[in-house]
Structure formats: C-alpha cells, structure tokens
C-alpha cells in the first residue's frame, strides 16, 4: 500500500529570489520578486503580488525541533505561518511530519519568547539594547582567548556549524561542547570502529527482520519521521517485515512489535553474546573477522546461562536467532537504553557484531558515502561533552561560554556539580528563544529568532537514502524586531574578530547567498545561473548532494566482557519520548496535551512499573511513590504497566522545569537530576540508564492527569472489536505479503 501522493503539482511552492528574476521554461511554478534580506517588519499595506488574501502560500524550509532536520512546507496566509507539513522533496521527511514538527508553530508564536537582549545586573536579568549587548560581548570576548572560551551547543550542522567552527578558530579555542540527551554517541563510536563510518545509512525498508535492543527508532530517536517512513515500507514489502523489540520499558516502537520481550536492564550484552553463540556454534555461521578474545567470550554464554541472567526465555532466544538467519537481510539495532550504560560501548559493539555475523553490513547497513562538505556536516551532541564541560568549569578552566540550543542546567545530573561549575564561569552568554533554565542562569541573553523566521542550512547526520543539504528560510517576517537569527549572531561575532573577512556580508542571508554561489557545479544541478540555483534550492528546500558509492568495512572490535550488576534495587530508565523529547518541548501546549503514547499521561510526570513489582511493594496504580537514588529522590505518581521488566522503573523525561515559561514551569519532576554520574567506560558518555533506585510508597492513589481512559475497562477492548488483530499467515494468503 504505497504510492506517494504527488502533492507537488497541486501546490504553488514559492521561493525567495533575487531581484527581478523569473524562471524560464520548465514545469516549475513562477518565482517571485522579493526584497532580500530585509530584517525589519514589512508592512502589508502593499503586499507582494502573489499574496492573495484568503489563499495560502507555501514555502519550503527545515524543521529544527530535533536533530533529524526534516524538510518542511509551511503554509503562510497573509504573512503568517499557520501550519507545517512535511516536504515531499526531502528524503528525510518524505512529505511527513511528526508531532514535534507540527508543534513548531507553537514555539514560534510562544507567548514566553524572549523579546529583548538581557543583561545581568544586581542578580537579575534586565532588558538592554542590542548595542549595549554587543558592546559587552565585544569587551568580554576580546578579553578571553584560547581554551578559556567555549561554545556549548546542541547538535549543529550546515553553514551555522561552519561559522561556529570559524569563530572558535578566531577565538583560538577548540572547546566546542556539543550536548544532546537524545543521542547515539556510543553507537557512533562503535560504528566508527567497526564499520569505518560513524553514521552509516540504516535501511529498515530493506530488512526482512529487525531485532531492536531498545532502539526507539520511531519515537525519540535521531530521525523519527524518516525511520517511520522506512518502517511503513518494511511492513508493506512483499514479505512483511518482522519486528522484535527487546527492552526493559516499552517504547513507542516497542508498541508495534510482533514480539516484545522484557529484558533485565543492563543484560543486553549477555543476550547479544548468547545470540552470537547460537549463530556461530549451533547454526554454524562463519566467525570470520571476530577477534579470538571475543570468540572465547561468546563461547562462554550458553543459552541457559543467558536465559537465567537476562530473564528472556531460552526458547524465545533460540527462535528469534533462528529467524534472523531465515529472514535475511535483517537488522539488529541498539538503542539509548543500551548505549546509556556503564558498559554501553561494549554492549553496542556486541549487538553490532550480530549484524556482522548475519552479513547485514552492506545490505541493511550501507555506507553514507563521502559528503563533499565536511565543514557543513553535523557536529553531533552527546553527554561526554557535558561531563567534560562540567569538569573543566569546576576546575575553573573556562572564563566565557556561549550557550545555544542546549539546556545543561536542566539536563545535567546533579552529581556532575553543574551549579558549581556554572558559578565558576565568569561570563555566560545564552543565545536563546525561551527563558529556559540555562538562559536564566546566563549573564547576557541574546534573543534568537525562531527557525520559522530565520535563514540557515541543516545537514542531518541521519540521511538514510540519499544525502542533501536542507535549506532553512524564513516563512514570515520576524514576530519581534529585536530577535536575531543564529546565523546573524554568529556573523556579528565573527565580524568582531575578523572584520576583513566577514565585514563584506551585511547579514547571514548575504553570507548564505555567497556560500551558495561558491558551491561546486556538481551540486548546482544544471542551474543556468546562481540565482536560478538559489531559487531552486529555496523552492525545493533541498540541495541534493552526490556522495558517491562506497562500501562499508565490517569488522568486530574487542570489547569488554559484560559485568552484570546484581545489587538490589530497580534500574531507573529516564526515557525521552516523542513529544516533550528531552524536555525541550515542555513549553509547547500541544505536546503537553498530547497523551504519552504508552501510558497516556498528560501535563505531568509519572513513573512506570510492572504491576507485580508494585504489588510486592504495596504500591497501587496512581499511588504516590518516592524514587530515590544515591544522588537524591523525586516524588511522583506511578502508572502500572505490563510493558516493563520487573526490575526496571521508568520515568519519562520532559517535566520538572523550574523556568521555561507558563506551560512548562512547575509541572512534574525531572529525573535527570538524580542520575549517578557514571559514564561509559570507553566513550565517556553518561550512563543514564545505570542508576539504581529504590521505590517507596508514600501516598494512596489519587488523580493523575491521565486520559480517563476506560474507567473500569482496564485498558482492554472488553471483547469489542475495536482493534482487530490477524495472524500474518492470513495476510500472506489474502494480500500476498
């Protein structure tokens, strides 16, 4: 059931262009003349000729709600962007858009946006003019050099990333801390070591079977929309794909599994080794490329031992392993809950090893080729940089830090001592849209334009089928005259240091136009002129890039033997979710109001436990519990769900903001604060899923902002056919899949 709807022919997708150039010939809709680069609010007394009141105009841009970088189309009416859709020309979004992308307009029109620069005086932030702010910046940045200066950002890519790197160079610093809570840093390290590439292309659509170790690829992942599109193909292929999800807490992806297996948290490496054992010793697949120490390790994990340690039934393990060989090519994925352990690297390597043994490399894991613009490629965030940052700051090694696109005050575990660290930094600048915790701790706040009113380019790290540079253009004039785009701020900073090089660019728009002109002809796709190329880029929203074909190497590295922690207590799983994500979208009311997909809670925090575990502790559904780690405790209500392993307690992320506006402040709790500061042995990434906690009942059940679903129905269909399920054999016969 495929067949993309070709909406393109029904839309008039407009692009911004230079003065007076119309496209000649071909099928493309007419482009128009617009004044370029104007920063002021334009009066609509004299609207452009294409603006017909009552008729929407569509522009292409790129979403920045997460690191995926989905191409979007924005519907603009009378100069206001109203609705975002996916851009069918974008290979990342394929014309689709997830809930976070849809809610982008709410971030743009958010009533709590920062509207003026602010400076700290006498303990609080007071509004100042841009002149004053820039003067202060010039003074402070002039006084610091080398590694005493740092940028602290989220994932950045595209020309903004290039400029940022240039600024660091200009400052003589190499300190770019890139921090993301939802990251695949450990996987990237494993991929780099085993495949030779950090971000290979994952082809779920080519797989016949996927075994996912907690990889929530359709939920809080690096590219939820892209992988969901692939998933649809995976399911509707001639031979319907089989999804097995093995995790300790049911994720969104796990909800769609043919088989969902609960595994004891922290034992995924054991399971992977057990499966490798079956593959090599029982099914007799080749062990070429596997180091001898790893081979010995594999041999020590027989099925009964594995079943005992992991809690996954032996026959199930055997069946899944057997099917992996029958349903080839397959794909084995490792997710955040696997990466985020003290042995994250080792476990992820063990799982990637399964791909190697099964021969999936080259079939469902492909090379991403050579991206010809390395300076534009994504600098991806992780948590190792957060740890390093905290340590550097605590050791008083940083004088000036500019924060952008990241909220470490909110996301950092208290055990990292970030409060002390921040206090040690003499001058903190925040380039930010919203008054989040980090922004409110800064000394200078620069109000940033939203992505819907700003120029830029994005190069998503996860581009599964083809590679492109995503273009970001303003969908409307700035809501507030005093905000500036990130690129513009970077340019201003660079002009302060390197006036001769950057002074020629009036603003970021000009810089980008120049950068596009400078692009090689291979990328310009037979455009007759630079203007034509620019218009085409803006119209389609993507610049396709040929990365060539390459083969991935497939090796297995040595990795440490798994150490299973048998100590008492439950393992805390601080789970990001599609929606509030890592907490960054808590200020968007649509996303707060959208029920969590698995538990259906809204506007609040909750803990998830298995009913059997709860019963042993005398905890009832919706009861009040205290979850305590060595670092601290949180009190919240519990939702009992069977999609949990008995030894796990999950607290989904997103709430517990102490600032961040009216929709986020004061709601729920933030479990990130009580995490241990444990890190992965090899990569230094925070082991967010290795914290042990105890759970204690402190109060009786009471109301929770949970969808009052089926009061009395117990979440069941009570025998009514609402969602029917059929076995696949039936579908094979009737639909030939």
């Amino acid at each position, binding site marked *: 059931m495929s067949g993309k709807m070709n909406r393109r022919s029904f839309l008039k997708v407009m692009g911004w262009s230079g003065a007076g150039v119309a496209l000649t010939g071909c099928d493309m809709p007419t482009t128009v003349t617009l004044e370029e680069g104007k920063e002021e609010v334009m009066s609509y007394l004299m609207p452009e000729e294409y603006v017909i009141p009552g008729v929407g105009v569509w522009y292409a841009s790129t979403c920045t709600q997460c690191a995926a970088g989905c191409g979007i189309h924005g519907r603009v009416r009378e100069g206001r962007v109203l609705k975002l859709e996916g851009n069918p020309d974008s290979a990342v979004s394929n014309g689709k858009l997830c809930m976070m*992308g849809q809610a982008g307009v709410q971030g743009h029109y958010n*009533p709590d946006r920062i509207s003026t620069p602010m400076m700290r005086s006498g303990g609080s932030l007071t509004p100042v003019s841009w002149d004053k702010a820039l003067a202060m910046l010039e003074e402070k940045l002039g006084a610091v050099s080398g590694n005493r200066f740092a940028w602290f950002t989220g994932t950045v890519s595209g020309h903004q990333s290039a400029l940022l790197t240039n600024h660091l160079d200009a400052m003589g610093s190499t300190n770019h801390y890139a921090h993301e809570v939802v990251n695949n840093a450990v996987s990237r390290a494993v991929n780099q070591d085993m495949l030779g590439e950090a971000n290979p292309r994952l082809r779920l659509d080519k797989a016949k079977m996927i075994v996912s170790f907690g990889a929530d690829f359709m939920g809080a992942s690096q590219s939820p929309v892209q992988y969901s599109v692939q*998933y649809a193909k995976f399911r509707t292929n001639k031979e319907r794909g089989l999804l097995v999800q093995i995790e300790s807490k049911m994720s969104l992806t796990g909800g769609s599994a*043919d088989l969902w297996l609960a595994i004891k948290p922290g034992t995924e490496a054991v399971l992977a080794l057990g499966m490798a054992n079956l593959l090599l010793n029982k099914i007799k697949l080749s062990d070429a490329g596997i180091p001898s120490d790893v081979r010995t390790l594999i041999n020590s994990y027989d099925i009964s031992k594995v079943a005992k340690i992991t809690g996954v039934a032996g026959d199930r393990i055997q069946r899944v392993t057997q099917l992996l060989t029958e349903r080839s090519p397959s794909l084995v994925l490792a997710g955040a809950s696997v990466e985020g352990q003290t042995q994250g690297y080792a476990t992820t390597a063990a799982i990637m090893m399964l791909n190697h043994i099964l021969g999936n490399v080259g079939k469902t894991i492909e090379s991403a080729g050579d991206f010809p613009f390395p300076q534009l490629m994504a600098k991806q965030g992780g948590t190792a940089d957060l740890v390093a940052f905290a340590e550097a700051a605590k050791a008083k090694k940083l004088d000036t830090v500019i924060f952008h696109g990241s909220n470490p005050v909110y996301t950092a575990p208290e055990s990292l001592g970030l409060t002390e660290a921040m206090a040690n930094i003499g001058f903190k600048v925040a380039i930010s849209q919203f008054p989040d915790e980090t922004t409110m701790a800064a000394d200078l706040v620069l109000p940033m334009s939203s992505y819907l009113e700003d120029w830029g380019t994005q190069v998503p790290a996860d581009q599964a089928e083809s590679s492109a540079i995503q273009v970001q253009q303003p969908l409307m004039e700035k809501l507030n005259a005093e905000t500036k785009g990130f690129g513009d701020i970077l340019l201003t900073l660079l002009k302060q240091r390197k006036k001769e090089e950057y002074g020629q660019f009036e603003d970021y728009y000009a810089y980008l136009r120049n950068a596009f002109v400078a692009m090689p002809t291979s990328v310009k796709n037979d455009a007759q002129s630079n203007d034509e190329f620019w218009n085409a880029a803006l119209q389609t929203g993507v610049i396709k890039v040929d990365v060539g074909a390459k083969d991935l190497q497939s090796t297995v590295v040595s990795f440490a033997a798994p150490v299973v922690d048998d100590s008492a207590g439950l393992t805390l799983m601080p789970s990001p979710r599609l929606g509030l994500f890592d907490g960054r979208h808590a200020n968007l009311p649509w996303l707060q109001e959208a029920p969590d997909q698995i538990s259906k809670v809204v*506007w609040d925090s909750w803990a998830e436990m298995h009913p059997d575990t709860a019963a042993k502790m005398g905890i009832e559904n919706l009861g009040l519990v205290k979850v305590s780690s060595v670092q601290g405790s949180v009190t919240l209500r519990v939702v009992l769900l069977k999609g949990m392993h008995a030894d796990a307690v999950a607290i989904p992320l997103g709430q517990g903001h102490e600032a961040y506006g009216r929709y986020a402040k004061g709601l729920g709790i933030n479990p990130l604060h009580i995490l241990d500061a444990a890190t992965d042995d090899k990569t230094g990434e925070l082991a967010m899923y290795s914290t042990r906690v105890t759970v204690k009942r402190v109060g009786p059940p009471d*109301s929770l902002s949970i969808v009052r679903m089926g009061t009395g129905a117990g979440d069941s269909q009570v025998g009514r056919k609402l969602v*029917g399920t059929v076995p696949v054999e039936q579908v094979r016969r009737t639909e030939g899949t």
Partner: protein
Amino acid sequence: MSLDNILNHWSDYRKGAEEGGHHEYEHRWAMAINLDLCTGCNACSTACYAENNLAVVGKEKFESGQAMHWMRIERYWDQQELEHPEQGASFLPMMCQQCGAATCEPVCPVAATYHTPDGLNAQVYNRCIGSRYCSNNCPFRVRYFNFYSYYESSWPEPMEQQLNPDITVRDKGVMEKCTFCVQRIRTVKDKAFMEDRSVKDGEVVTACAQACPTSAIVFGDTMDENSMVSKLWKKHQVERGIYQKTKYAKKDTDLRGYRIFEELNIDPSVMYLERVREDI
C-alpha cells in the same frame, strides 16, 4: 427540513440508506486506516490541533475528560493474561466516522448536524444550542463539547496568529467534531470548479493523513473508482450502506478490512484494516 422534503424523499432516504446513500452524491469522502502501520505516534492528532484551531484545555480540564482532541489515539492492551504485552499495544486512531446513517443527526433538536451531499456529517456551529444529545447518541463518542470559552485562555498572544482563518474558533456551548478537514475539501472543490475539472485523487488530503509518517491513513473519494481509498475498500470487500452483515456479507472473511460497530448499522465512512502480528 420542510414537510415537503420529508414526505417526498422519505422512501428515497430509507431505500438509499440501505443501498449506500440517498443523495445523488458527487463525492463520498472516506478513509481507510491501516492499523498495522499505525504506531500510535500522535502526529495525526497534533496536526489536527494545528489545522482545526482546537483548544488546549490544560491539566485540570483534561483530567476531567473535557479535552478537545477530534482525533484521539486510543491505546488498548490485549493479551492481558500474559505477564508482558508480547504483541505490543493496539493503537486506534478514532475520529468522527462520518456515518452514512448517523445516529447523531436525527436527535439534534435544531438540526445543527446534518448529512452533506459529500457524504459528510456536518456540524453547524452557529445553529448548535448545546443540548448535547448528538454526543450522547454517538456510539464512538467522538463529539466534543465546548464546555468553556477556550478562546479566552488557550491562545495567549501571539499564539492566536497561528489560528487557521479557514475555520472558526468555537465559543462555549457548541458541539464540534472531526469534519474530514472540510475546509480543505471546499478549497480544492472550489479550485477544481474554477478550473472546470473534477477533483483528482490525492488532491484533498486531511491534516491527519498528511502528517502520518507511516501513511497509515488514506483519504479519498469512494465515488471515484480509481482512488486509492476506493480500491482499498473494494479489495477488503467493505461496502457502503447499511445491513452489510446480512445482505452483503464478505465473501472472504479473512480480509482485514472492517468497520467498527458494524452491527449497529450506521454505515461509517472509515474502514480500518486489522493489525497484523506474526506469532513466533
């Protein structure tokens, strides 16, 4: 609603209801939702909020059950006897089924809800006096009532700029529900009319269908035989009209297509395809 109309067309109506509609329909909008592809991700629901000016009601009111999600994702757990839900969760996107023999239509005292020539169940906001009988009579419970004047608090400045001008913002006291994005249908129909052609398949796409990352929702016109939705309905042998179970029983009962509460004979315009699970 005149007496003339009732008397002259009564037999048409009754006969038509049995055979799939009493009007000379120019379109009959329908949906096919593949529950095997639905991952429960909420993209459709959020897109609906954006497109249709739905009010965010906030924590307390949501808890009271006064939410306004025209498209809601229901999540059921099957296999509750097992220790873990081994076949995942069952997600059901539920919205107004635009029933052909809608139970909500006859009971509105002021005829604020009626059947359009497009096969949609229309809700006329300015005629509604808020008796809420329609919502009570809906077996799917997909009608939502404006219990408060949400516009007073749901869109603090400048959020009101996001509102879609093609659709009103409802005040308290009126009932609302999914309209199959009727504003989009109207726009496309007007455009096609002005260009002197018929509406093409895929030209109208509802907000939910457009957003869905797995393309689980297919929207189209069942009067157009070549539309994707028509082909799906035909393939799964689900036919419009009531009394399907007795008169037009499916020849192949193994086919995945079904409509919810088929036995109530209300002729919903939404067909669901059962989710598939491989038992391993």
